[in-house]
């Protein structure tokens, strides 16, 4: 498939579309248009009637929170974006969304902030105008800013009864010493509590990151390419490019295995996390895709380990692997909930043994073929409506700003051999990349590292 990108000079030049999407994991024709100011627009017309999904991906997340005391700010900013402009104060903005019958929300992760709105096609012009206004002209008075910081604390509180949140907080804090992946997207509680005092920094944050070169607009649904381009020209062309590039600290090489114990004040079954520092997302190198395959092969429901610990021995009731794509090297993490505290060490050892098994011998060809089939069907078959297509695209767009990265990624999956799996396992599943965390009910914290 060939993608014809638009001229960088003139958006109004209508772009030819990709002519064939056959045999690609992303089966839709799409259009890519770049404005001179750096804003990119991806349009994916679909046959699903009436509905339009507008996803605006900002390639800024908690990874960008490089200054001490500012963790959680990308997420706070996501909240502030709903607080209005001079032209459309929050009340007017909400009224307009309500009038359009729109579902509107947003989320923040390590590497991105995504604003999503789903609505009827006749309201595209109005919604596009509203979005352009808030991205360019957000104006939050200090009192509203402070009130919103309390809603963020409320969001922290709603998750506070979950030990999994604590497990991940401790895992990151242990595994990363300098990189901003050290904190979760919610941020450290102490920073969340201090947010009311950070108004000036919020202005700085907006100036840095809410700039066209950080933003990609994704429009999926009952739309035409020309219609979208026209509206983007109308509402977004005047947005000024920024100049800020964050210096994200590089994580120093780990020299020994790391571990920590977390005491949880209320009753809970113990949780075990075993993580290895893996590679960053790439659509050209085999490292990340190979480890993606291992995370499914080794720890999904059909894996030998799941069958052993969950189904046969019944010592564990939850076992899952998490290896989300990241801009910088991140953790391949396996998490288990153990039914009996006496089996914690056993479970930890079994997980490590499962990782090690991929170093010892190449994986069987039929298993590799099954996992490739699973990934391919699992992704491609999840694109069953316009919103799902946009939602699936957003993380990749935030990373690489083109749907084409998906096709490259799945081509890489297809190319991976049992030998690649073994080689990558040897490279990454070593003690000097490992962090383990055990969370259990204890009256008093007794952490060690």
């Amino acid at each position, binding site marked *: 498939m060939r993608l014809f990108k638009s001229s960088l000079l003139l958006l109004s030049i209508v772009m030819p579309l990709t002519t064939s*999407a*056959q045999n690609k994991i992303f*089966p839709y024709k799409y259009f890519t248009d770049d404005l001179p100011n750096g804003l990119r627009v991806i349009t994916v017309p679909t046959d699903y009637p009436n*509905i339009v999904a507008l996803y605006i991906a900002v390639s800024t997340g908690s990874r960008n929170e490089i200054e001490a005391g500012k963790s959680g700010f990308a997420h706070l900013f996501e909240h502030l974006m709903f607080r209005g402009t001079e032209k459309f104060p*929050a009340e007017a903005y*909400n009224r307009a969304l*309500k*009038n*359009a*019958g*729109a*579902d*509107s*929300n947003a989320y923040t992760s390590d590497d991105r902030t995504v604003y999503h709105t*789903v609505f*009827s096609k006749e*309201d595209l012009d109005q919604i596009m105008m509203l979005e352009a206004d808030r991205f360019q002209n957000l104006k939050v008075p200090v*009192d509203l800013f*402070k*009130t*919103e*910081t*309390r*809603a963020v*604390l*409320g*969001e922290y*509180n*709603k998750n*506070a*009864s*979950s*030990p999994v949140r604590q497990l991940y907080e401790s895992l990151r804090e242990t595994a990363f010493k300098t990189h901003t992946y050290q904190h979760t997207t919610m941020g450290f509680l102490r920073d969340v509590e201090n947010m*009311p005092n950070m108004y000036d920094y919020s202005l700085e944050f907006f100036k840095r990151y809410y700039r066209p070169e950080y933003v990609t607009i994704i429009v999926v649904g009952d739309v035409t390419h020309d219609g979208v381009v026209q509206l983007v020209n109308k509402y977004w062309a005047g947005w000024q490019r920024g100049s800020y590039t964050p210096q994200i600290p590089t994580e120093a090489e780990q020299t020994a295995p790391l571990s920590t114990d977390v005491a949880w004040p*209320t*009753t*809970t079954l113990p949780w075990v996390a075993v993580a290895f520092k893996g590679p960053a997302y790439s659509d050209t190198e085999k490292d990340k895709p190979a480890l993606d395959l291992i995370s499914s092969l080794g720890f999904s*429901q*059909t894996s030998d380990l799941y*069958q052993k610990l969950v*189904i*046969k021995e*019944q010592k564990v*009731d939850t076992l899952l692997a998490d290896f989300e794509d990241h801009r910088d090297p991140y953790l391949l993490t396996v998490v288990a909930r153990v*039914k009996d505290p006496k089996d914690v060490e056993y479970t930890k050892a079994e997980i490590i043994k499962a990782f090690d098994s991929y170093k010892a011998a190449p994986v069987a060809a039929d298993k590799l*073929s*099954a*996992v490739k*089939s*699973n990934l*391919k*069907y*699992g992704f*491609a*078959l*999840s694109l*069953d*409506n316009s*919103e*799902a297509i946009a939602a699936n695209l957003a993380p990749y767009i935030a990373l690489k700003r083109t749907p084409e990265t998906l096709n490259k990624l799945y081509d890489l999956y297809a190319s991976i051999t049992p030998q690649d799996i073994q080689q990558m396992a040897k490279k990454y599943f070593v003690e000097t990349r490992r962090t383990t965390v055990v969370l259990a009910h204890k009256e008093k914290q007794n952490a060690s590292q």
Partner: protein
Amino acid sequence: MRVSNRLALISIVLLILTAGATDIGFARDLARTGKASTSMASVLLPNSSPLVSFRFLFNAGSALDPKGKEGVAALTASMISDGGSRAMSYEQISAAMYPMATSFGSQIDKEMTVFAGTTHLDNLQKYYGIISGMLLDPGFRDDDFNRLRTDAINFLKESLRGNNDEELGKEALYVAIYNGHAYGHQNIGTVESLEKLTVEDLKKFYRDNYTQANFVLGLAGGYPKGFEEKVQSDVAAKLAAGAATKLALTQPEKISGLEMQVIQKDTPATAISFGFPIPVTRSDQDWPALLLVQSYFGQHRSSNSYLYKRLREIRGLNYGDYAYIEYFPRGMFQFQPDPNLGRRQQIFQVWIRPVEPKNGLFALRAGLYELNKLVRTGMSQEDFDATRRFLTKNVNTLTKTQDAQLGYAIDSKYYGIPSFTDYVRDQLAKLKLEDVNRAIKKHLQAENVKIAVVTKDAEGFKQAALEGKPSPISYTSMPAKEILEEDKIIESYKLNFNLKKVEVVPVDQVFQK
């Protein structure tokens, strides 16, 4: 809990792999199979999609759990969706489904149990072969039973009591409202009843209730001609004809004043839910009016609803505040409700997301004050028009997938209404402001209400609530003068508790028996 999580995963349905020849041989086989039961209920949405969505629904759920065997309906369902069939172990099933990236999940509620999954047409024969075995010829193995029973107990102890104060409060509220009623236990059961259940109990439940009379076949997508007859004849061959399970529902107990359960738990925030029964379901004439009220007052996860604006946006009390006229579990994980939670009785409910403990009593007062105000003043023409416009368009988003269309179509059959989105739009078009305000006065009130609170100082909360002293809100940033004036009213809003019905409950007693 696997029951809910897997269903959520499954409802992320499939799509469009390019090409892929339809299994014509299979279609021919089916055509030959021929004979089908004509009496079996079905909802069929054939289309040209390369996907096929299944919803196998039984009009039988946890309301049928016998006394002392609470949880038998749920555990029976999970033995089918998360256990082996007679022909295949669960391990073999997982391995066979893995390359197809599909699954088969279950959802249990009071009056419905549904099994759902979607497959690409390429894999239809294989997939159907597996799931028909699971549903019609379940394995009921001891090792599956032990695993899934432990999962169920851990769902109550860990997932609800331990890790999710919001769902804990909401579910505890339902249990309290339906005290002594067939709906009066958590769908998964109680810890003590689950500990006593046996495989024989499950087999009996299956025999008695998984009958043709209770069964509804839901199929959507590009399945081949004759496929529905094939499924129906398989069902007819395996499941007893039976009679539709008749369950006479009593009325929920009368609520006198404010009745409150304060759950004692060492937790950093305070979760609050309150509500009361309403005699309105989708079958009733007033349902569209109450739907509009619900949307205006507390549309789920929307920043546009009244409660959200007053409590969160203006006061920064918490993360969100919503209202419901139908059961909506797992709301913290999803923006839209799951279908196939049909009930003959529903409650009106307000969900106040966790607040700082120092603002707990203020938040409860604010919720009740706003509800009282809604009942007193009703909606304005402007709010009515805006909410109607919103719902008329927004209803489309509920049925954006084939699987959701199928689920809603089955529910519409259950409630005896036309196609859901058409019905809502048509009814909204006919509604008038006076209909809505009449429905508010008729069905809503803020005096006789059950309340569930989860907090670390339960006794302190109870005492403060009963003493009736003002409970001022604590602010980081002062809001406008008129809000501060309103706060003065809210902080002293009179709470008329029924003293006999205010109790502190340790968290380990909730869902215990």
